[in-house]
């Protein structure tokens, strides 16, 4: 499992990436993060939802209740224009950072 600080800094990045092409609900987001990181990254509700609400406040994502016939309503989150801009900046920053780290440490991505 990753250190808390690192996770915190990257959490928003992760969420925005996962919402980039598809709207998802909270549990789904958590599951995806967990499975794609092969269990390295997991969130508890205590961190995930306050994070989502914060991002919503900041105007990066939009939460919306969706009701389908015969199903319970669920709250789906989708990315909006501001979120996409933020995601772009984070990606650039991350790449820059990763490149820098690689140069210093000699670690390379496989």
């Amino acid at each position, binding site marked *: 499992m990753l250190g808390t600080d690192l996770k915190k800094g990257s959490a928003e990045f992760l969420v925005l990436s996962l919402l980039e092409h598809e709207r998802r609900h909270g*549990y789904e987001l958590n599951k995806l993060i967990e499975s794609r990181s092969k269990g390295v990254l997991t969130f*508890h*509700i205590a961190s995930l939802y306050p994070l989502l609400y914060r991002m*919503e*406040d900041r105007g990066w994502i939009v939460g919306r*209740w969706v009701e389908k016939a015969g199903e319970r309503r669920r709250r789906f989150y989708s990315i909006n224009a501001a979120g996409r801009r933020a995601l772009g900046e984070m990606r650039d920053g991350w790449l820059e950072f990763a490149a820098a780290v690689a140069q210093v440490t000699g670690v390379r991505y496989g």
Partner: protein
Amino acid sequence: MDEWRARLRNVVAGWGLSPEEQTGIVDELEQHLEQELADLRLRVGDAAARERIMKQVDDPALRDASVRPRHRPAVSVLSSRERGAGVAGLARDVRYGWRSLRTSPGTTAMATIALALGIGLTTVMFTIIYGVLLRGLPFEQGDRIAMVMEANSSRREGELSLSMHDFFTYRDAQRSFETFGAWGPITVNISGDERPERVEAARLTAAALSVTRVRPSLGRAFRADDEAPNGSLVVLLSHSLWRDRYASDSGVIGRAVRVNGQAATVVGVMPDGFGFPHESKLWVPFRLNPSAVPWGSGTHVNGVGRLRTGVTYAQANAELAAIAGRIARDHPESNAGVRAVVQPFIRATIPPRVYALLYAMFGAVGLVFLVACTNVANLLLARAAHRTKEVAIRTTMGASRAAIARQFLVEALVLSTVAAALGAAIAQVGIAAFRSAIAGQAPFWADFRLHPQVFAFIAFAAIVASLASGLLPAITAARGNITDVLKDQSLGSSSRRSGRLSRGLVVFELVLSSALLVVAALTTKSVLNLRSIEPGFRTRDVMTGRITLSARGAENQSAFFDRVEEEIARLPGAVATSLSTNLPGSGWSGRAVAVEGRTYSGASRWPGARHLAVTPGFFKTFDVAVLRGRAIGVEDRVGTVPVAVVNQRFVDRNFPGADPLGHRINLSPDDTVAQWVTIVGVFPTLYATDQGSINANNPWPSEVLTAFRQESSGSASIAIRTAGDPTSVAQSLRAAVASLDPDLPVYSLAPMSDVLAQSRWDVRIFGGLFVVFGIVALALASIGLYAVLAFSVSRREREMGIRMALGAAGADIVGLVFRGGAVQLAIGVSVGVFLGVGAARLAGAVLFQVHATDPAIISVVIATLAATGFAACVAPAWRATKSDPVRSLRSE
């Protein structure tokens, strides 16, 4: 509920969010955890999964999470529209409310009719009170017109008229009134040009007339010189007298008429509707000559004045009190303990008893209104419970509690508005009925119409109704626990709560309506008692009328009455005729009597009796038998021994076990000159009402009949028993009297049955109104009881189904439903009957020969409500037994 859910709610509740945000977040987190729990269960088993979930919930990080209240503008498309406030929002709510009410037309119609009845009846009572008490005199600043009377506290006498001397002293000393005059009631015979007529009139000083600021529509008003004792007499005519008697002839001014046999000249005609001060149709100047009589004696008058601008009633009272004090010092023999009382004219004119009665009835009708509101509240509550799902969805779609509550209130308002329109129509009909029932009895200023103020009252009532009936359902609906309702369809806590609430409302409703029913039943019995009363004398086929002789000598009077009786005895169709000082029934005059040879310890110990002086024909005309001795005979004339015939009740009270015949009684023991009469016969007790009193204390009193020809009377009531329709002799009666004296009018022409009914018109009208209130209250309470029982059964259908599946018989289910209703009935009815009896004691004014705790009445009320409750239970209970156990279980 799982423990973790409860804790989760607790944690989120600590975040300080708005209720709706909280609900949304709890919902979202719950879903997340539920799903996680399901996933974990497959991997680690139930217990461990729960432990992990609990750990997440108990994570201090969650408790401390800083979630700022969010402003989610785009939570959903619907919610942003729903949030709309202001006019557009209201209009949408009204539209939505209308649509939603239309989806349950039965409920809506029932609630509307209930409320319409409530509003309609309340409006009728308000119109009556407004028309007679609140609207005021139809004069410029009518509320500034005051009556000035006196009270003697040492003799416990209130509202006395003023002696002339007091009046002039007040008039000359006071500064509170800009005009101050005197008036006195009088009834006059008007004749001299057309057929003679007897009309209610008033003697007015010129100032008393100008107090009203009303000018004659024709001619002139009174002038100060009209009051000179020896001047020529002038009269003012009312519009109606001018119209009916003089065919609205504008040349009437200057015409010579005779007023009580005295020559007079018409100087003016007052405008239409002017009847000041007492339904007067004619006015003569008040001629007062205080120097002719000692202080305090002579004619007494009523003071009337118009308060100066800026002077209050309190100030006027204080000023006149000071003057009264000075008079009492100067003339203690007549004025010791006498105070002045300045009151608004209407307040002083309407008897306090009537005031109390009117407001008591307003209170009663207010209860009916409350029953109606309760009913509507109940129906809306039932709807709210059925709509918990709809409300939950709206809430989760972002509608705030306020919006939900508003929606319910708006629905109540829509309903009340329709009901108010309907209520106005009901009131219109009610007022028309009341007007025709009270025709001729109302004071001249009374105007019973749907005035703009009445419409304002209706609007107010509608708003009160919508708040009273909508608030509880609105709050209940808004508080409804959304997640519970959405999670499963089983009975949520909200419907249990609304069930308790609506059961409470029904008990409340039962209390009100059983109280009203008690009063209504008592007054119904009073009215029936009055209808079915056997007065002991003939009322069918008896025509009556009255004549009052203008001043002439006693001998002339007696001779004239002899001739009158001769004339009327010859009328075609007359079977029997009589003259009497007044008519039996309402005409008895009360007096004290003393039996010869007995000593009485004081004036208050003299036995009372009702008295009439009659001619011999009385007994045949009114079919009154003589039980012992003889009747009044033709031989009983002036100069022979004065005789009396007493009734059985008189004998029972004054001669128990003894023979009254031959004994003498004094008919005026309080006078220095005794009026001894010898008892010559006994007749059965006849019915007697208190004239002018709503409350007949004892309709079967001691009675004494004396010989009309042995007394002197200026007036006589004529009674003619006819072979056929009594009214057929009216014309010939008039002609017969006119042939003897063309100036003498026969007035109060009416069949005896009408005279008797007339004497109790107040009980009939107000009693009748109470009956209507009671019936409406019963109907409303029945609807309410039925609706609530039906509702509670429908909510328990599954439970019933399970019970039946477990072997309960239909009878058990019916019993179950019944027990629920029976408890409410028992509580509501017992409290209500108790209150009703208390109220009936207060409303004792309209009770006639019924005791407030009449056991028969109370049993009838209880039986009626029990039967209604029973009926209200039958349908729901029966439906309950039909619930299909399998379907019930499946839906669980």
